[in-house]
């Protein structure tokens, strides 16, 4: 391939990426311009237009209503994401590299848990949490999100670890380490992309979850999504405040994406096989 041809391909690649990025940003654009308008200026026929003069009142108003609940969401999403990711990594390791009689059945039983329709189990869920004294606590929400997150996180790690050659386990055993040693020294360092994916999923799900938040906690223990939906779902909807709220609430998740994204490291596995 000539250098000119290669150059052209690179340029085309960037053009394509930028075009796709713009396409992805169209709805975000609508959210943004709506959030900067005054409520009476929001109307379907002018949805594409830029606001006449900036109005930050909706963002301030959104912040005033959401602010107190942000802390609860952090208290919920960070521990719940970490705990479920760690347990999921351990499960995935056991299920992919230490198969025993019946481990496929166990994998399936765990996996099936992700399909349970949450709306249909609210009543027993409330009863169980009440019985163990965790109704209306962030701790109770953490427990629920960890439990219902386990199937997906286990799946992510199991399939991720399954792609890692078994030779690595053997190598570890020859070095004299057992089950836990192989996990800590060989698999944990390799599992970073798995943690990135699991972390992105879990944090997003937990941070944005509304159903459990509204059913299992009361003010002032409610996460920020309840405040968000309360803004959104009133009798007269203030579209501008709703859009501004949605943007504000999405910022921590975006930060998580940016931070975790840094660990999409190339060639992790290649290096370790050599070493």
């Amino acid at each position, binding site marked *: 391939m000539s250098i000119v041809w290669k150059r052209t391909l690179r340029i085309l690649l960037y053009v394509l990426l930028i075009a796709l990025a713009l396409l992805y940003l169209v709805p*975000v654009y609508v959210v943004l311009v709506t959030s900067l308008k005054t409520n009476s200026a929001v109307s379907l026929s002018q949805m594409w237009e830029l606001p006449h003069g900036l109005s930050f009142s909706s963002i301030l108003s959104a912040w005033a209503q959401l602010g107190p609940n942000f802390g609860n969401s952090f208290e919920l999403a960070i521990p719940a994401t970490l705990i479920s990711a760690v347990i999921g990594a351990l499960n995935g390791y056991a299920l992919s590299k230490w198969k025993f009689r019946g481990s496929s059945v166990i994998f399936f039983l765990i996996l099936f*848990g992700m399909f349970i329709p949450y709306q*249909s189990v609210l009543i027993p869920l409330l009863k169980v949490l009440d019985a163990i004294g965790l109704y209306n606590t962030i701790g109770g929400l953490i427990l629920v999100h960890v439990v219902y997150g386990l199937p997906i996180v286990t799946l992510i790690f199991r399939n991720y670890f399954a792609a890692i050659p078994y030779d690595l386990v053997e190598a570890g055993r020859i070095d004299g380490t057992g089950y836990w040693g192989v996990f800590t020294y060989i698999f944990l360092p390799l599992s970073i992309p798995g943690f990135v994916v699991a972390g992105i999923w879990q944090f997003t799900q937990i941070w*944005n979850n509304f159903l459990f938040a509204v059913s299992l906690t009361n003010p002032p223990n409610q996460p920020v999504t309840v405040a968000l939906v309360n803004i959104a779902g009133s009798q007269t909807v203030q579209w501008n405040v709703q859009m501004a709220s949605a943007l504000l609430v999405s910022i921590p998740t975006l930060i998580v994406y940016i931070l975790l994204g840094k660990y999409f490291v190339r060639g992790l596995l290649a290096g370790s096989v050599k070493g």
Partner: protein
Amino acid sequence: MQAGAPRKHRFSWDTFSAVATLIPTLLVLGVFVYGFIGWSVYVSLTNWNSLIPSNTFVGLQNYLDILQTYRFQSDLRNIVVFTVFFIVGCLVVGLFLALLLDQKIRAEGFFRSLFIFPMAISFVSTGVVWAWILNPNTGVNLILKSFGMKHLPEWFLSTVIIPNFGLGQIDVGIPLALLAVVIAAVWQMSGFAMAVYLSGLRGISDEIKEAARIDGAGAWRLFFAITLPQLRGTTTTIIIILTAASLKIFGLIYAMTGSGQEFVTDMPSMNMFQTTFQGNEFAQGAAIAIILLLLLASFIIPYLVSTLRRGDEA
């Protein structure tokens, strides 16, 4: 397949550790998943169809009732159509984006965060925004019109169903309105598919690719002979997770279109929610949940068995 196989029968501390690792998970899922499914099955067999709890056993009556409604028949059609288009859409778009980002490009982090960002925004607002964008009178159609397009799509307001043959009480086919919803859902979730694919791509060792390249494989051959087979496990992960997400899709459609005219965009989850909590028909709501689970099991079990058997260590 020999990967996990050695020492299957002899007792070892390592196997013991593996089993012990899984016990806490099994215990909590035993209560929060299987216990609750058991509860739902029990409720679905009673006539608890008002705010007055009832233990009267009515057999499969609730199932028969629900299966005979126009709404639930529409839901079954819609969930199948939606899931297929949604998953294919996310897989294709996600893989395409991941491949583009894997070309050692500048500002990878920027593009990557941008493509996942939709997932971070609450459905409550994205649903509304997509309803505006795809409103045939005001949204993207204004732009299409300015390009001189004559027959503008009706988007989610369309009641057309293709190919449309009658079965039960409903018309079976692909409701065009659902495709508009699929666009919104793919926009929101394809970033996640991209992230998983990216992690999968980064897991393929460069040596294998290099070896193939030395053997004279071109870019296409490399992709189909090496990359794609290596991503099989990754694809399974995405399909399963997105199937679960698809079955539970609620917030986005609720905010965007609601049930739609003649239930063209209704979903079993919405039906279940309204039956249970608007209509207070708890037993019928539970029956919907159980039918959904059974349907799912009938799809997922064969798929899982085949992938497990094929051996995903490749």
